[in-house]
């Protein structure tokens, strides 16, 4: 089973929820994938022992100038303007390249080979409370996160229970993260921002056909707009986590949220039961 924890808006509690789920579900030997590769935080919350670090590369073209006759075909077919052919040299802009491989395949002189361009690392850690954490960490300055997210999700395919801590937003990195999931937990907050961004995330889960449910974090009693949205879309509200300054403070200070707010344990177990029922 693969559960994605996502939200349109940032800072609504995705990492709080996914790391706490790891503790509550420790008996299942879960794997948590931190797919927020631009700003991965799960490893700062869960205590872990890193057992492996692997570099991740994506292919980019390398021109063999001995073979190249500067015909310009590669620049002509590249839809991302990543190649510029001059009279006696070829410029390659790695940051624009999408690693499609068309230039290497189609070069009439067979002068293009692909080489690995490092984009980040994947760390594998043993979580002290149980389970495994896979953290994708994008190199600063790299623009494209989806290839790294894909690589992180490709590890530990055998795991029975995978939780994915997704990046904020609703566009390609978020889609790459929630893709192939059995269920998507959408974490939101009862503010106009939370509502607006939740509507966009619901469009994304609907497009992919992933069943989803809402968790309202920092709940303070009023959630008419969110309840109306839930009614309209048929996406259920699975839980409301009350606002608690003790929890906020403990989380910021790096203390265990489940110790600061013991009721969180039963809220999370209940969410899991509802997910199991929904996908059964």
């Amino acid at each position: 089973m693969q559960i994605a924890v996502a939200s349109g808006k940032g800072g609504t509690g995705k990492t709080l929820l996914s790391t706490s789920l790891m503790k509550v579900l420790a008996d299942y030997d879960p794997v948590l994938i931190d797919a927020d590769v631009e700003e991965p935080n799960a490893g700062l919350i869960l205590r872990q022992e890193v057992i492996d670090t692997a570099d991740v590369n994506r292919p980019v073209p390398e021109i063999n100038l001995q073979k190249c006759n500067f015909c310009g075909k590669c620049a002509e077919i590249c839809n991302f303007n990543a190649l510029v052919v001059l009279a006696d040299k070829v410029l390659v802009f790695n940051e624009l390249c999408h690693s499609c491989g068309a230039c290497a395949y189609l070069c009439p002189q067979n002068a293009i080979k692909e080489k690995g361009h490092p984009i980040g690392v994947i760390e594998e850690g043993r979580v002290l409370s149980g389970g495994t954490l896979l953290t994708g960490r994008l190199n600063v300055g790299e623009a494209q996160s989806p290839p790294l997210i894909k690589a992180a999700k490709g590890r530990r395919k055998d795991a029975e229970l995978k939780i994915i801590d997704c990046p904020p937003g609703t566009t390609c990195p978020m889609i790459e993260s929630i893709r192939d999931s059995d269920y998507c937990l959408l974490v939101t907050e009862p503010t106009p921002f939370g509502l607006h961004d939740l509507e966009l995330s619901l469009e994304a889960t609907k497009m992919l056909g992933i069943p989803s449910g809402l968790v309202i974090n920092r709940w303070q009693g009023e959630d008419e707009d969110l309840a109306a949205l839930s009614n309209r879309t048929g996406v259920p509200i699975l839980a409301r986590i009350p606002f608690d300054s003790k929890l906020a403070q403990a989380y910021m200070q790096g203390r265990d949220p489940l110790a600061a707010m013991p009721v969180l344990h039963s809220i999370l177990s209940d969410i899991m039961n509802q997910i199991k029922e929904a996908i059964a």
Partner: protein
Amino acid sequence: MKEILVISGKGGTGKTTLTSSFIHFADNCIACDYDVDASNLSILLQPLNLIDFDFSAGETAWIDEEACISCGLCAELCRFDAIDSHYQVMSLSCEGCGFCAQVCPVQAITMQARPSGRWFCGISQQANTVLFAELRPGEDNSGKLVAQVKSMGRKMAEENQIPLIIADGPPGIGCAVISSMVGVDLIVLVAEPSRSGFHDLQRVSQLMQLRGIKGVLIINKWDLNPEICREMEEWAQKNEIQPLGRIPFSTKIAQSVAEGQIPGSNSDIKEMLFPIWENIVDQLTVV
């Protein structure tokens, strides 16, 4: 004309709260929202007389079923698994590289323009021009849409001799953030005092310094963790990032946002935020 960009690395630290308030204090400026994934600035600024424009970037492959001979070459070569077993293109996966169209032996594949989102222009209650955009869920090319909003903002500022652009940035350090930084004079980093907040601040600052842009730091909800707050300020100073202010945890700010109001328009909150804005203006005059 100068441009200020507000970013944070981590999401939910208070970028939009502060950006909207700064726009309120600045009076003559253009407001841009570069968070094209989840645009929130307009919820507080409530611009009127909205005009919207379609935005297309990139292409999607389309396979003509009649012409297709099911040879399978396109699906075999596609690196994005965008062509399914019935030779249909899954547009959410298609990157628009056009490799398939190039290699199809019977020219059954064409590349078509891809509607990716919209961008909007309106006038705020305070008569500032507001520019923001919505990328369609699942779309690529957020950097290009940011660049579109930015170029319109700069053009309007030049044409109307408006001296300042204040922009709300996206979270993270990826393509939208990189695109947001182009041509910016001063970056306001908004951080929350937690291990995660500190970690994310360091990564986004590294990106900022790679681009050679000057940054200043504001710590939001500082009193939730005074110890890390001090640690962050010391770190900032060592890295030539001027700490410009601390904002305490405030239920008034939270309430103002919940009501859809610009926090800085409330006099108690203004008292807290205005001195920080004055510090930013001072810093802007020396860049």
